[in-house]
Each structure stands twice: as C-alpha cells, then as structure tokens.
C-alpha cells in the first residue's frame, strides 16, 4: 500500500478519482507545503518522497513500473 499525499491546487480533477484505489492510501490536503514543486508541474508525495512527472497519470504509470502492480486497474 502506497501512501500518497496530493495537493488540491496541483491535482488534475480527472486524476483525483484514480488515486482512490486499492493499492493507494490517498491523503488529500489543500496545500502540502511543496509549493515549488506545485508551481513547476504535476507531483505526488509517495511514502514521503516527492515524485514528479509531466502529468499525474504519468506519475502513476511510473509507480506502476516500480511496484509491478497494475495500479489503474481497480480489480487488482
């Protein structure tokens, strides 16, 4: 289970529901205090570490590769 902090001012509305799935423990806040990353582009904080990407979907794909889980498939 990955703990994922995300920020309301950063998250893309279409990505927000993707984070609510079995392999993730999503933690939402209006600001994560990571304003530099937030201004620069898409980011998530995964188990305490900042992960950046072109989009949140791309970050989730990166996590998929690292964990070996099909994270976007809620059947898993």
């Amino acid at each position, binding site marked *: 289970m990955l*703990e*994922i*902090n995300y*920020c*309301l*001012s*950063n998250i893309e509305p279409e990505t927000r529901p993707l984070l609510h799935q079995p392999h993730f*423990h999503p*933690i*939402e*806040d*209006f*600001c*994560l*205090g990571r*304003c*530099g*990353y*937030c*201004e*620069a582009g898409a980011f998530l*904080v995964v188990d*305490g570490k900042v992960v950046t990407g072109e989009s949140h979907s791309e970050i989730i794909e990166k996590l998929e590769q690292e964990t070996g889980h099909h994270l976007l498939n809620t059947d898993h």
Partner: protein
Amino acid sequence: MNVIFICIDSLNRHFLQAYGQPIELAVAAPNLERFAAKAAVFDTHYAGSLPCMPARREYFAGIQEFLWRPWGPMEPFDVSLALAARRAGAITQLVTDHYHYFQYGSHGYFNDYHGFEFIRGHEYDAWRTQPIEPDPILLRQIGSPDPQQLHFMNRAVYARNVAEFQAEEEFFAPKVFRQTADWLTHNHQYDKWLLVVDSFDVHEPFHLPEPYASLYTDENPRDPALINWPYYGRIDQGQSKLSDRQVAFVRSQFAGKVTMVDRWLGQVLDKLDALNLWQKTMVIITADHGHYLGDHGWMGKPNAPMYNTLTHIPLFIWHPHSPLQGRRIPALTSAVDLYATILNALEAEVPAFVHSRSLVPLLLGQTTQHRDWAIYGYWGSTVNVTNGRYTYLHPCREDRPADCYSTMFMNPHGWFQPIKRPKEAQAGQFLPYTEFPVWRYQAMSYTRHTEPMLFDVQADPAQMADLAAEETAVTADMRHLLHEALQHLQAPESQFARLGLE
C-alpha cells in the same frame, strides 16, 4: 492614548500558564505571565479568518474575510489600521519579520505606516542564496530539501538565511523585540502613536539557539533524525508521519521558542516601565492562530477539523483606564474586534462597514456581554461557530465550488505562487460592505470532515467528545446560530448553498 499591538504568530494558548497550561511541559514565560497579571485576560477569544494573512486582514482592515476570499492583499476599499490612525493624528510604525507581507499573494499591508522595519530571513523569505551548500544537519532537520533545486519556496533558503547566525541576538524574535524597544526609546515623545509588532516566531521552523533548544528536552538538538520543521498533516501517515520521539522533540522546540520570545518581549515591557508609558498606552498581546503539535493526531495547520488548538487564542489587553486590570474577561470575543478596539483607543474613526466591534466598553466595565457568536474558518472550506459554551464545526459540500471575491486575482489554494488565470470571472458590485466592483471567480471546495461536530468546550476544553449525534437539539441550535451569523454578515448566497444551509 497610544497603542502597542503585538501579535505572536502561532502562540498556542494552552502552552501558557495564564491559561492553565494543560500540557506535559512546564513552559516558562515569565514576562507574558507578568503582563497577564497586570492586564485583562480574555478567556473566550477566537480567531476568525485563518491562517496568517487572512488573520492580518481582520486585524488591519476589520473584515472577516474568509466568507469572501482566501489569503490575499489588502483591498483598495479597506481602511487600514495605519491609515485610520494617521487620519486621527497618530504616528504609525510596523516592526516585523513576517515575510508573508512581501510575498506572492499579499501586498498593501505595510504601505500606510509612517515607518516599518522588516527583519529578513524567516522561514521561506527569499533572502540569501549562499552558502551554496548549507549546513547538512540543519538541512536534514528542516525536511531534507535539495539545495540545488531552483523551485519557488525551497526550504533550503532557511538554512542559507540563518547560516551566519550564532548568538541568540541574531535570531528573529530577539531582533524584532529589540527593534521594538529601540523604537519606543526614540519615538515615545510623539503626541500619539500606534506601534504594530508582528513577530513570526513562534511559527515554525522550530529552530533555536541554545539554551532554548535544550530547555525542554534531553535529546541532542542537532540530531539529524529530529525534525524541527515538520510537514503538516496527520502524524501517523504520509509525509507528515512522525515517531513519538520526533513529536516530543517538536513540542520541546516549540516550547523553547515560547520561552525565547518571552525573554525578548520582556525588553519591551521593561522599556514601558523605564519610560513610564503605561498610563498613556494600551498594550495588546495576542496570536493569529494556534498550531497542532500532535493534538488530535495532527501537526501544523493541515486539512483537519478546526479544533480549539487552532482557534481559541490568547488575548491580553492593558488599558490604562480599565477597572478590570489583572482580572479575567469571560465574554465571547473575536480577533476581528481588535481593529475597532485599537481605533477606539486612538480616538480614530471606525468605518461603519467593518465587521469589528470595539472591546473598549468591555475593558471599561461598561458591559459584560460582547457578542452572541464568533465564526471562524478557512475560505473554501468548513465554516465554524461558537457561542462561547459550544463549538460547532460545519462541513461543506465538495461538489459546490466556493466563490472568491476580490479586486485582484489570487490563487485560491496555492497562495504563494505566481498567479494563475481563473477559468472564468465576472465583475460587479458583489460585496455588501463596499460599492467597489470586484471580480468573482470559483474554486474547489474542500471539507475537513463530512458530518457536523459539536463540542461543549466548558465541560470538555480539549474537545475529546463529539456530541453532535447525541445532543441533537444543541446541534440544531448551533446550526441555526451559524445561519444567523452568516445572514447578519450578508454572506454570499453561494456560501449557504455549499454549506447546505439554504
């Protein structure tokens, strides 16, 4: 009469002996205690708009802004405290290390003073770019930022800003309060003056010189495993997760900061003694909000229910003509009330449209009742009300956006970043307290809890028992009180909708 207004950012009420200090640490603050013994101590004082800059617009413009907009600038229609004081013949001065005044998302807060001192370097203040490689231990303790990262608001700037600090006198609160005492020395002979002192300490980072770093802990304060600038959120999960040992250390450093601020605040009180100013000066000491330090499982000012840790704030006022000096004042009061209180003391005009109600009649013993409700919250989120006995925390619907009203564009949730264009905006005379046209634009609502919460804060000051489900009649009464307060303030229609209070 002259006025000194001192705001100590994030000063937790429950860390002070004057308020019973119901915590595990015996935090020493002898100067605050001597002031509390001399002044009127307000027992039921609540923050209004949170966090830092929204609280300051309440103090400096008298507007309870969180129903209309988030963190932002002074508006052109605001009559600032300094401007109103000037018009009443007072010389005005600001002493602060509160860098948010000069950051994206806020401006106009210092322009009306005759003079201001800005002490550089606190928290994210964009001040120093060297040393290129800051102290690696401090970097670990402030959250392990990458010092080579060039994004906005890199925590490494703090390590650079304080790189040359060695003696206690070089830290922030000592500079703020020494400047304050110096200003009094050189300016007290003006006929009438307003001195605003806005200390960013005891706000994080909880980074301290000795002896304060070791006062309330046996740990090595330079142990890199011990964080002094924790991320906001729950202490049991995610980026804000902390061990019990780390939480205890954070609490010890917060306590050390209280003691350090207190020591230097004492220089200001000593100066008032030495210059014999008490009989012609009103002195106010308060905070803007509190700070969770593991309370209810939270750290910082996160997306949490708005418990009293954040919102029930300290207030001490010395008024030379008050018969209540050294006494407790139980009446319900609100942060926004200090604007009119200060202008009243300066015999300055209080604009009719503001939300502030002077506390001077209470201080003079002319009344014991001040207000029936105080509301508080963050823009775009839950809205909360107290009648002094109960606190009622009301959730919002996340499927209903919040409207932002301002003459300026601001980022509703990313306050410190370059301004992003809202998708749509309308202009018009939308505000009940000004004929100025303003922009109206929408942003996402976020709730802090999904069900209403109710606490009897007289019987349960730590708010351990949520009574909303069992005390249904009181819950309904408090919901009605919230509705009444919003109607009184002529809150936007969209607020009623997003709160389900139509």
